[in-house]
């Protein structure tokens, strides 16, 4: 310790605060302050478009309103089923692709990079160009489907039964590489001697997969799903551009509904309460999930 004092210039402690300070201050100002502000507004009947009108304290009224509104539960259901199907498909396809890529054939790296491309693109712009692919008159997607199985004319975006699948397909197309990459890292982290020992013990390939591969990949897969779960719970941009929540409210996810209440109807107090509820939900689920994930890792 005493050695450090010989160095010239600021002490490490001062440098530490100097370096961390700006980041923490900025986060407090642009992230925490707005959040606290939103919590405060959630207890009032504030309308952000009515300047000069003094908001009144209404207690828990907004929260009760949100939780008693049937439409909100419908949105939550739409969000939940979107999350369920996207995560399920991305887990299965992503893990499958990772297992295949792990066979280290020629051109492996190049193919991985190509497969990864969709997830780096702007979700909003992806939403825009999929409206073209899904176009019922001229869309490539519709053409290809009809080529293999004649469905006649169908409208992925315009039909309330198909639209939820339209967003699931695009999200899966875009984000399967994410689970794939993370699972691939998991597969590569399995030490070879485990398989060698299993071979010596005459374990079949299937047994090796169940008892060695799967348990080693599982923590990685769960981590990938955690990231995707948080992102898809917040999902906004791609779906807004693809279906804008429609038809009716068939694909109106929680975030899209929140945007409508906050920026179209300007019910600031009410929408803040909804935002706080969403935020608590995501945090709560996230925490429970991390605990479960750590338990699985420890095993």
């Amino acid at each position, binding site marked *: 310790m005493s050695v450090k004092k010989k160095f*010239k*210039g600021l002490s*490490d402690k001062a*440098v*530490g605060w100097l*370096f*961390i300070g*700006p*980041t*923490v201050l*900025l986060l407090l100002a*642009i*992230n*925490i*302050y*707005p*959040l606290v*502000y*939103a919590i405060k507004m959630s207890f009032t009947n504030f309308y952000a478009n009515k300047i000069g009108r003094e908001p009144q304290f209404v207690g828990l009224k907004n929260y009760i309103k949100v939780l008693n509104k049937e439409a909100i539960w419908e949105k939550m259901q739409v969000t939940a089923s979107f999350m369920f199907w996207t995560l399920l498909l991305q887990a299965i396809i992503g893990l499958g692709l990772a297992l*295949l*890529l792990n*066979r280290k*054939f020629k051109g492996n*790296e190049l*193919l991985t*990079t190509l*497969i990864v*491309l*969709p*997830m*780096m*693109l*702007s*979700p*909003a*712009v992806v939403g*825009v*160009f999929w409206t*073209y692919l899904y176009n019922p*008159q*001229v*869309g490539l997607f519709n053409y290809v489907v009809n080529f293999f199985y004649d469905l006649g004319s169908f409208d992925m975006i315009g039909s309330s039964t198909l639209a939820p699948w339209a967003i699931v397909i695009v999200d899966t197309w875009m984000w399967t590489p994410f689970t794939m990459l*993370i699972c691939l*890292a998991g597969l590569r982290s399995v030490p070879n001697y485990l*398989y*060698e020992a299993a*071979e010596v013990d005459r374990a079949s390939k299937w047994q090796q997969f169940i008892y060695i591969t799967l348990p080693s990949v599982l923590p*990685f897969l769960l981590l990938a799903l955690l990231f995707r779960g948080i992102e898809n719970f917040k999902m906004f*941009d791609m779906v*807004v551009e693809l279906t804008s929540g429609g038809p009716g409210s068939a694909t109106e996810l929680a975030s899209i509904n*929140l*945007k409508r209440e*906050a*920026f179209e109807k300007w019910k600031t107090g009410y929408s*803040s309460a909804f*935002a706080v509820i969403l*935020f608590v939900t*995501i*945090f709560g689920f*996230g925490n429970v999930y991390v605990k479960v994930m750590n338990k699985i890792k420890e095993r």
Partner: protein
Amino acid sequence: MDTSRSYLEPSSFSKKMAAAIIIVYAVITLIPISWMVMTSFKNVDSAISYPPEVLFEPSLEGYVNLFTNRSRQSKEYLDSLPPPKNWYEELVRSREMVITGPSKFLGRYSNSMIIGFGSTFASVFLGALAAYAFSRFRVPLKDDLLFFILSTRMFPPIAVAVPIFIMYRKLGLGDTHLGMIILYTVVNLSLAVWLLKGFMDEIPKEYEEAAMIDGYSRLQAFFKVVLPQAMTGIAATAIFCMIFSWNEYAFAVLLTQFNAQTAPPFIPTIIGEGGLDWPAIGAGTTLFLLPVMIFTIILRKHLLRGITFGAVRK
């Protein structure tokens, strides 16, 4: 029995099967992107023909429409005009239209650039400082602070958008480049700190300690020894921040309208009145996605780290 290869190595048949399936997947997954690029080189009629045309006569109509505003004119009026000065005027005239001026696309694109570069620089700079401190010093409540920084990324953007909207209105930052730069800097900070901390952890402490024994102060050692060592990590982090700012839509659509609007909220509006100008949409999309695709290829070795905030390092 074949003993020439290790029993761990997959057989050459299973490798070939795996390769075949992966190639099929790669082709399918790239079709939507390639289709958009192809559409950008079609003319408007070809883009709305059914069955979709795979072979077509290339046209730059989409790009011309992307960069210009046009208005439809009567045949008599068009005949009364002097002959077109250049190829793109000719192209527009053949559609019985005249060019009325440049479109907003370039402005929106450069807004994306300015806000992207500005916020990337700021978040990488601030992130590198914080990451260094977290990596080297004993900071009180270090884990809590790091988790706090990460947790800011979990906020649904819409949840904080209203307060930020009100705050920006008061401060005069609404619809300004500076406002968007600050906002994206903050959103990217969590990623920058977490990623850069990982990269800095990998640089041996002994380097800067040696420099400090030679008479450098802590600050000098950081700027002259650590930063150059961390350059690869800093570049990778910068690209990730840039891609995020480039792609961001929710804040852009809610907080900007004219002055500081970026390309993502603008691109859907290119479609035009008839809703048929797919080549122009294709052109805008292609120009917008191209930088990201190039960046992805540059980044490929660090991709995993970036998308998991440094949690998985391979």
